[in-house]
């Protein structure tokens, strides 16, 4: 049997390892991996986002925080192309992503998880992760039906990769189990595995701590950091749970009423008077 924690075989070996923080700091001032430029979203007469801009540097964990209705999820949905911004642009490595349909986002290296877990409930853990590789593989229905040699080779390669990721996230024991029968916390790890299967450059996490208890949130925080370090992934964390964001994010962007309220290190944002006011209310109110 394989060891439960198979960290020895990262998919994309990187020499930086634990020194990612310094790499992220070095990257400041270079071209950002992802740039959100002046993005606005209007629904009917409601301005959900109003000229929000920020940069994400390679290797960063960026926390996006804000009270309910601040526009976090709206921004997230713009990044995953479910919403079309009415103004502004989003650039991935200098290229606008706004001309791409939602299903062509994964292929440029943007992976995501969903707020309340959106797995394929009738498929096994392995098959869920296999679907995650869709954007990185090719096939057509005729070759697939005939199981041509190149399809076989592709599947063998894919299986190796999928098993590596399943091991990486401690899912070996449940690999063949249909996901609908798994506990919520495990399903969240399956979703992470599925997102990682496409070897993303950026991982968008939509409220990953939702529905987890205190202990599980702590484990999740370590896991996100570990994924960033081992697999060279930049993380955008949209989160309600302040404890999680403040403990693992390198950089925090705070939104309120669709505008950017503050931006900086967790400590800077936490002590920002506007942010405190937004979360706790001011004395005048």
């Amino acid at each position: 049997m394989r060891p439960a924690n198979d960290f020895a075989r990262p998919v994309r070996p990187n020499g930086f390892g634990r020194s990612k923080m310094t790499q992220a700091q070095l990257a400041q001032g270079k071209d950002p991996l992802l740039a959100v430029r002046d993005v606005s979203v209007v629904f009917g007469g409601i301005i959900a986002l109003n000229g929000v801009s920020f940069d994400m540097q390679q290797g960063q964990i960026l926390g996006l925080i804000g009270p309910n209705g601040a526009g976090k999820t709206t921004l997230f949905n713009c990044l995953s192309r479910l919403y079309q911004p009415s103004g502004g642009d989003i650039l991935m490595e200098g290229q606008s992503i706004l001309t791409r349909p939602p299903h062509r986002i994964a292929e440029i290296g943007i992976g995501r998880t969903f707020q309340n877990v959106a797995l394929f409930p009738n498929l096994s853990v392995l098959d869920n992760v296999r679907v995650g590789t869709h954007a990185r593989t090719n096939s057509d229905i005729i070759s697939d039906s005939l199981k041509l040699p190149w399809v076989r080779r592709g599947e063998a390669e894919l299986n190796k990769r999928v098993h590596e990721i399943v091991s990486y996230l401690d899912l070996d024991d449940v690999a063949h189990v249909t996901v609908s029968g798994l506990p919520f916390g495990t399903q969240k790890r399956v979703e992470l595995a599925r997102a990682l299967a496409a070897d993303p450059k950026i991982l968008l996490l939509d409220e990953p701590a939702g529905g987890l208890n205190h202990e599980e949130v702590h484990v999740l925080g370590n896991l996100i950091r570990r994924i960033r370090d081992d697999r060279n992934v930049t993380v955008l964390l949209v989160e309600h749970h302040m404890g999680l964001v403040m403990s693992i994010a390198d950089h925090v962007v705070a939104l309120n009423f669709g505008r950017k309220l503050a931006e900086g290190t967790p400590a800077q944002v936490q002590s920002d008077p506007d942010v405190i006011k937004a979360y706790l209310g001011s004395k005048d109110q």
Partner: protein
Amino acid sequence: MSAVDEVVTEAPAVEAVPKRAMTLGYGTSLVMLALFLIVPLLVKNFIVFQLTMLLIYGLAVLALNILTGGSGQFSLGQSAFYAVGAYTSAILMEHAGVNYALTLPIAGVICFAFGFLFGQPALRLSGVYLALATFALATAMPQLLKLGYFEHWTGGVQGLVVTKPDAPFGLPMSQDMWLYYFTLAVTIAIYIFSVNLLRSRSGRAFMAIRDNEIAASAMGVDVALYKTLAFGVSAGITGVAGGLGAIAVQFVAPDSYTITLAISLFLGMVVGGVGWLPGSIVGSAFIIFVPNIAEGISKGLSGAVFGVLLFLVIFLVPHGARQVAIVAQQLVGKLKKN
């Protein structure tokens, strides 16, 4: 880590569900194959004909199973694809003198194109609404076949008579027997292709769409493309079944392909177990033999008896033959342990 421990202790119970959820194991497949090869040698010609129809409807149910069980789209319009396949084969054989075996791939390709194109407008619909749109297709098809414009080719209301092929290479075999083995070969080939397809990247894309469209799209699955492809594949297989059906029955007429046929196929899929490919043959057996059984019980009330039998099946095994297979597998597993 407590979460992981919990999963580990839970795992064996969940594992009891077969891993190859959509197919049979090798042993069972071989037994089934042996049965299909031997049984026709032991029975009368009429039964051989019925077994041929069993395989043909089995193919049509399999096709619907790929669409509904695989990609999660409903269709009550399969009779239309079946009709197009049947007429394509019949017209090619009778008007153009094409060899019967060659007409089948042509029927498949034409129906694939028809299904793929029909899938385009159907993209905007899902669930019951899609079922209604396909229902409209099924009701329109017999009338389209009767149209005066096409009468020269289709034979209008009269339909077309198709010549039954002889066994090739002077094999000492009746026409019915030859057609049975020919149909069996086609069925096995299509079954294997379907299993391959559903276990491949394309098949996983179908199932991902069935389970969660938005998540599938986020994984890079072109939802519109794969939905229409599923329609195309399903229609293509149904077309081949239709072509075989025309050859076996030796006759095509518009009123053989009404909505009743589509509903029968839908019924067959439910009885066989939605999403379980081997169940297609069980479902097909149900729609071919159970009406006869019902007639045997009461001639005047055969429809009502059929209804009661159907109700019993749905009540006792709501997941169809698949459920029976899982229970049987667990029993065998227990016996092996003791």
